[in-house]
C-alpha cells in the first residue's frame, strides 16, 4: 500500500462517512456542515484522478457557492435545532423501485465502462488540463456550452425579476 492508496482510501472514507452523516443526522445544521467534507473528499479524489481543474471547480462551486447558500438557508430557518427530520422508513415500495433502478443504472455504467487501470499518479506525466478543457469547450462542445450559459442568464434574469416584483408594489 503506497502513499497514493493511503490518500485515496482516506478521501474515500471521508466522503462516505460524511455523506452518511448528511443523511442520518437529525440536526439539519450538522447535515449541512457535514456536506462540506463530502464535497471536500470528492475534490480530493478528483485530484488523485489528475483532474485538477475539476477538483478546484468542485471546491469553488460546491463549497464556496452551493454549500454557503444551503447554510444560509438553514440558518435563517427558525428554530434550527428543533427541526425534526424524519429518518424512519416510509413509502418502502416506491423507494425500493427507484433505488433498484438507480443501482441498476450505476452498475451498468460500471460494467460497461472501459476502466483506465494500471497507471498511477506518479506514472502519469503531470500536464495541464485547463487548456484542453478550454479548447474543448469552445470548439467541439461550443453548442452545449452556449446553451448552458443562456440558461444561466435566463435564471439570473428570472431571479432578478422575482426579487423586483416584490419591490415594485411598494414605493420605497
Amino acid at each position: 500500500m503506497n502513499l497514493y492508496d493511503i490518500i485515496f482510501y482516506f478521501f474515500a472514507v471521508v466522503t462516505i462517512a460524511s455523506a452518511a452523516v448528511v443523511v442520518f443526522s437529525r440536526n439539519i445544521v450538522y447535515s449541512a456542515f457535514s456536506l462540506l467534507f463530502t464535497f471536500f473528499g470528492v475534490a480530493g479524489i478528483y485530484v488523485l484522478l489528475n483532474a485538477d481543474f475539476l477538483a478546484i471547480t468542485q471546491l469553488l462551486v460546491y463549497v464556496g457557492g452551493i454549500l454557503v447558500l444551503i447554510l444560509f438557508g438553514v440558518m435563517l430557518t427558525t428554530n434550527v435545532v428543533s427541526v425534526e427530520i424524519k429518518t424512519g422508513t416510509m413509502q418502502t415500495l416506491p423507494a425500493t423501485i427507484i433505488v433498484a433502478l438507480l443501482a441498476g443504472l450505476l452498475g451498468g455504467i460500471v460494467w460497461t465502462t472501459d476502466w483506465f487501470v494500471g497507471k498511477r499518479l506518479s506514472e502519469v506525466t503531470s500536464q495541464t488540463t485547463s487548456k484542453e478543457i478550454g479548447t474543448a469547450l469552445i470548439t467541439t462542445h461550443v453548442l452545449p456550452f452556449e446553451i448552458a450559459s443562456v440558461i444561466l442568464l435566463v435564471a439570473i434574469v428570472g431571479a432578478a425579476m422575482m426579487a423586483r416584483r416584490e419591490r415594485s408594489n411598494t414605493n420605497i
Partner: protein
Amino acid sequence: MENILQLLSNPIVSAVLMALAPLLFILPYALVTIYIEMKMAAHIQNRLAYMQTGWHGTLQPFADILKLLQKEDIIPTAASKFLFILAPYLVFVGTYSSFAVLPFSSAFIGSNIDLGIFFLIAVSSLVVVGLLMSGWASNNKWSLFGALRSAAQIVSYEIPSALAILGVVMVSGTMSTQEMTHFQDGGIGQWIIFGGNLPLWQKLSLIPFMIILFLIYLVSSMAEVNRTPFDIPEAESELVQGYNTEYSGMKFAIFYLAEYANLFLVSAVVVILFFGGWTSPFGTFLSGPVWGAFWFVTKGMLFVCLNIWLRWTLPRLRVDQLMYVSWKVLTPFALLCVLAIGLIVVM
C-alpha cells in the same frame, strides 16, 4: 544521520514537512505584524504603544502569545461543542492552504500548480464555511449575525476580486502564479500594472484599466479580510466582535492568526497580480532566489501596512453600503475592464 536522511526521503514525511513550511513564515510574520500594527496605530493616534517589554516594546507580541496560550479555554455550555472547536481550524486551513501557491521566490513555491490563482480563489471559500460554523456554534445571536454578515460580504466581494484576477490572467495568459511572475520579470516597467511585457502600444492602452483593476482588487481584498472600513462582521461597537465573541484562549488566537495570515495572503496576491511578485524592481540588479524572497515579502508587507493605515484612519461602512459598493460599483467596473482588456489583448 543516515536514519534522518532516510526518514526525510520517506514520501509521507517529506510531504508533511513541506506542508509545514509556510508556518515557518506565518508565525514570525504574525508576531512582527502585530507589533507593526500596534505601533502604527499608536503613532497614528498620537501615542506610543508598547514601551515597557523589551526595547520599544519589541517583546510584547511574545507576551501576548503567552497570555493567549495560558488563558482558560471557555466553551459555552449551550454551544455546539464539536463545531465550536472545529471552526477556528477550518478558518485557518482555508487561509493556510492558499499559501501553497504563493511564489516566495523563483526557487521556492509550495506547489507550482498550473491553476495557482484559481486554486487560491477556491480554497478561500473554506474560510466562509468556517466563519458560518463559528457563528452558529457559539449559540449567540450576535455571533450568528456576524457570521451571516461575514459570509454575505465575502461571497459578494469574491466576484469583483475574481473578475480583477481574470483581467490579469487574460493579460499574462497563465493562471500559474510562478509563470505570472516570470511574465513580469525585468524591472518595474514590466509589472502588470504597467501592462507587463506586451508590445508598447498595448502596454500604454492597458495602464488605465490595470490601475482600475488594481483598485478594485485592493478594495475587495480589504473586504475579504474583514478589516475597517469593511469590518462589519466583527464590528466591535455593533456586534461585539461578531463571530468570535465567544472564543477565548488558543481558539481565539487561531482566529487571530488566520486573520493576519489572510492579510498577508491578499497583499501577496496584489503583489503577484500587479507588482511583479518576487521580481526586483531594478531588472537584474539585486535579483536571484534569495533577493526574490526579500522583494516578495517587502512588497507584501507594504500592502499589509497600507491596510493597517486605512484601518486606523477610516470609519466603518454600513452593511447595505457595503453591498452597494460591491454589486453596483466594483462589479460593473470590473466587467468593463475585463471587456476592454480582452479587446486590447486580442488586437
